[in-house]
């Protein structure tokens, strides 16, 4: 533990905060949209289940980001997750021909 953290350490901490908030929300949002469309239950039930779970997903992501050995590793994990979810969502919306991306201005 250093007495006065160097600029590098401070930047790494700030990076994790940004990654935890932004990445955590993005992964949670993508997972909610994907599960809302794919869970094998009536539409309203799927949306409710996915939305209720989303906050636990986000907390889990935050813990992962702060527990990872380095900022780069954390970014790789979150980026990979977001990519997988995003691609899956793209396929699902494409096959359902819903069209609009879930992350974006709502009509």
């Amino acid at each position, binding site marked *: 533990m250093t007495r006065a953290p160097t600029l590098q350490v401070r930047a790494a901490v700030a990076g994790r905060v940004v990654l935890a908030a932004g990445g955590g929300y993005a992964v949670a949002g993508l997972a909610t949209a994907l*599960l809302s469309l794919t869970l094998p239950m009536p539409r309203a039930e799927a949306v409710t289940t996915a939305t209720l779970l989303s906050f636990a997903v986000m907390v889990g992501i935050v813990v992962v980001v702060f527990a990872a050995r380095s900022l780069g590793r954390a970014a790789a994990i979150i980026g990979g997750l977001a990519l997988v979810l995003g691609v899956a969502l793209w396929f699902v919306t494409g096959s359902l021909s819903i069209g609009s991306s879930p992350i974006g201005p709502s009509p």
Partner: protein
Amino acid sequence: MKQGFRQSMAWLHTWSGLVVGWVLFAVFVTGTASYYRAEISRWMQPELKREAQVTPEALAAAADLAVVHLQTHAGAARTWFVTLPTPERPLVELFWRNKPGTPPGHVLLDPQTGAPAAMRATRGGDFFYRFHFELNLAPLWGRWIVGICAMVMLVALVSGVITHRRIFADFFTLRRDKAAQRGWLDAHNVSGVLALPFHLMITYTGVVTLALMYMPWGVTAAYKGDQFAYFAETGQITKARPAAGQPGTLAPVGPMVGRALATIPEPLERLTIVNPRDANSTVVAVFEEPHGLSHEHPQVAFAGTSGDVVEVLSGGLKPAAKTFTTMVGLHEAHFAGAALRVLFFLCGLMGCAMVGSGLVLWTVARLPKAGVATGFGWRLVHALNLGTIAGLPAGIAAYFLANRLLPLDLGARAEREVWVFFGAWLAVALVGLWPAPRRAWRGALALVAALFVAVVIVDVATARALWDDPAWFLGFDAALLALAAGFALVSHKVARFAAPRRMRRVMEAPAAAPQMGRA
């Protein structure tokens, strides 16, 4: 973060808790007070006389009077909300939404005459309720800030649990004769761990109450963003009936109230009248939740122009929707009887204690050595701690005092009560700038205790003649005295705990608090 999982979680716990601690303290205090929202409102309007019962005929007549008032004063409004009289609160409360950009309307009526009720203007317990999730800011801003803080609190709770290797042993540990830092650490652990299920439940369900605002992407994906369609499909609200765009005349509402009461065996809570002057107007009778945990209001919808029933909602939610309404119900605790409500209130106080002791612990763990000046960061945290932990309760006491002391015919009286609340809060927060921290704490907490005693004295002196049930009002006052005693006790303990000799011992043995010390 380099030092291993538990250390990184300890770091996360310390800093995430500190950053949002002040907002969370305010949210916990006002949320805890909101368990007694109706009681606070009643205490703040002692002119109100309760009634033995309200008959269905009286409800129907009150609804007709409400519509007459709304047609005269709120003809252009898009939606009318009518809260009907109950034995506890025999008043008609009207609320209406105008065009976007214009403020909503609000009035209390006497259910017998239809004239505005003769009572002092106040926001009562509703002020704490709204502050709990909107912080008296613009609703959107307040809700997002509180939501973000609640998410950080969830992170702090989870990381706090991971940090505690000895979570069960800590459960039973309060080493009050050891060093001050140990005492605060143990107080934080006991208040945090003992009520941990409550804290986790209340934080998660709190976020869930506004889930679709924070996490709308499921509805965006599956319903193209139409939240009304989603809620109607889950069975929580009746289906929306769009306006026809042609004028129509609202049929008498009294008979609709009668039919609704004959359909649903619960107390009728309110009427919602949508597009009241349209040919496609809708009247929805919303009932109280049936006995049980779930926040699930039975509803009967009528076509406004004909008075025909178009939809009846009563139970039958699917599992996920039931889970959602149960979580909201758990958060609001409407189901709780008197004894259980006391338990929720005490758990809420434990939450206040957990956040407060955590904030104080941060400063105690970082006290500089004797003779060394405190840094800016330490002084800032200390001032914000004192300003919040003593300032907010002082504001609440001052709000109650203003309710009894402001002239009854004062213009904008309800808003001025709120000004007094913030004025007193700010005044006590300035005490935090006093150069001697220990004396500042002691003085501010003693002041809070004195203010609550003053509330009781002023209440008895000015409002005694108005009490319709003296035992009830004396009970409320006794609760305020208990709060005053609590603050006086903490004020006394702060003086004892922060004695210089003890402080020195902490500084000589910094290794004594390894678990959640400085990270």
